[in-house]
């Protein structure tokens, strides 16, 4: 039984309709996103289910997962805070922001908060270089940009999640 298919039959049909019928492996990237929608990472089981839907091997799906930074094969924070520290942002204080943020919330870069709520990562340019310091948040709800940030702004955002997830 293909659980991914059971759960998202309608979405999967819509995704497959975007590509020629004999080229359905094109759907691998959107299907990985779909699998990540629950828990913000993809399991081995889900990879094999995607392989089954697209008639490719689990290894092929796994290699695609490994190639891209927005796919995760291990659980991280429910909210992944991805701070851009690439050169243009670093010229506008992004590195100091990251250090101060980590200190303030007591979580190191690459680590997850004890309650599993959020993790902090340093990432490459996000096409918002004029609005540094900035980060994106990747969660089950997709990806959201937060620009011109202060540590206080970010702290308030995290407190908001804490309340929401209660």
């Amino acid at each position, binding site marked *: 039984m293909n659980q991914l298919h059971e759960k998202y039959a309608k979405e999967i049909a819509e995704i497959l309709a975007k590509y020629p019928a004999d080229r359905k492996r094109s759907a691998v990237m959107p299907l990985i996103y779909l699998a990540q929608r629950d828990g913000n990472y993809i399991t081995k089981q889900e990879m094999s289910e995607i392989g089954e839907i697209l008639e490719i091997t689990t290894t092929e799906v796994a290699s695609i997962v490994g190639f*891209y930074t927005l796919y995760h094969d291990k659980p991280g924070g429910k909210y992944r805070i991805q701070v851009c520290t690439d*050169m243009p942002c*670093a010229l506008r204080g992004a590195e100091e922001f990251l250090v101060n943020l980590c200190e303030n919330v007591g979580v190191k870069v690459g680590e997850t908060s004890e309650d599993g709520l959020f993790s902090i990562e340093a990432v*490459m*340019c996000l096409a918002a270089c004029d609005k540094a310091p900035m980060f994106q948040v990747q969660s089950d709800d997709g990806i959201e940009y937060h620009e011109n940030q202060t540590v206080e702004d970010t702290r308030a955002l995290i407190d908001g999640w804490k309340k929401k997830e209660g």
Partner: protein
Amino acid sequence: MAEHKVTGHRILLRHRDIPEIGKFEVYTAQGGFDTFKKVVTTMQPADVKKLVLDSGLRGRGGAGFPTGRKWMFVDDNNWPHYLVVNADESEPGTFKDREIMERNPWQFLEGIMCSAFAIGANEIYIYLRGEFWQLAHELDRQIGRLRKEKLLGEKLFGSDYSLNIFTHLGAGAYICGEETALLNSLEGVLGQPRLRPPFPPAVGLYDKPTVVNNVETLANVALILEKGADWYRSFGTTESAGTKVFSLSGRVNKPGNYELPLGATYRELIYEYGGGIIDNKKIKGIMSAGASSAVIIANDEALDTPMAYESVPKLGADLGSASVIILDETVDMRWLINKTIHFFNHESCGKCTPCREGNYWMRHLTERIWHGQSDQSDVILLDNVAKNMQGKCLCALGEFSTMAVVSSIERFPEDFKA
């Protein structure tokens, strides 16, 4: 017939003059999609291609290739054809395509629709970097609206022409902005570059003739078709027609996107529009095309150089995607190249040895040099590694990775003295 309103030299960032242009009703009240209808019902694809060629429009994704000429390479003996829009926008320092698609979406969509007709494509794929997740969902809604308005779909306006648009999200890989890696990624295989030739207009998506163009390039097309090639050429220089969105970042007071006629000078961009350097510091260097570019010494000659495809090479750099990163006297070039190499080492797709190994070595060397754990011999070695990579890599990323390194060592030697 209503016409698209252009204020001064703002062709692309028209939302700054017409705040509600993101609304379908506002865009159509201004003649939006009249051009698309006119093109489909009264023009031949060859006429559209000719007009775009005559306008002098060149690719805004980096290479500056004449758009009309690229379209004319599409193989008419092999069908179907595809139009693929490059919305991967991942070059550090580049944030123009995002503003165009977010704020002036209908002009972008009308542009890609007219372009698809010109090359005989019935399907458009917009490949967006994965981080543009919200933007992709907004575009999906807008595409739905166009279908409802019968501006997309089968047999448009009673003609034989059918057109559909699909969005496809990447997932965080700079290399997927390279057009053949992008096509591989879209086909569901690893996003690594293909050997060329053949080029996409001969063999592209699903082995079919394909045009890959940048967002900004195509966002010009509807207005060019409405107002004519001569109108477009009234902006810019002879070899660099039209306007360009400059993404200005780094050590300036007012970073942001500025649309200027090609041929405007760096001085205008940095001091008139960008408000000058932070804390009135002295400007040191200019990166003209994001992290991929050579670093220009920001002297008076450079500041007075026109930002045009033919002029920037005189400074030993390229106009590229026109992502202008400003470095001031507080920036140490050892820090700078350590940052750029960190990026390229992370983004090298690993397919060819010179780029994969070269970046690995450069990464170690720039780390050591920046942290002062080395002597002059490491700088010489770094320079050697970079120069040995040049001309040997499978795609331009490998070449890009060496640009800041080689130019910084050559042009800012004082920063590398131990």
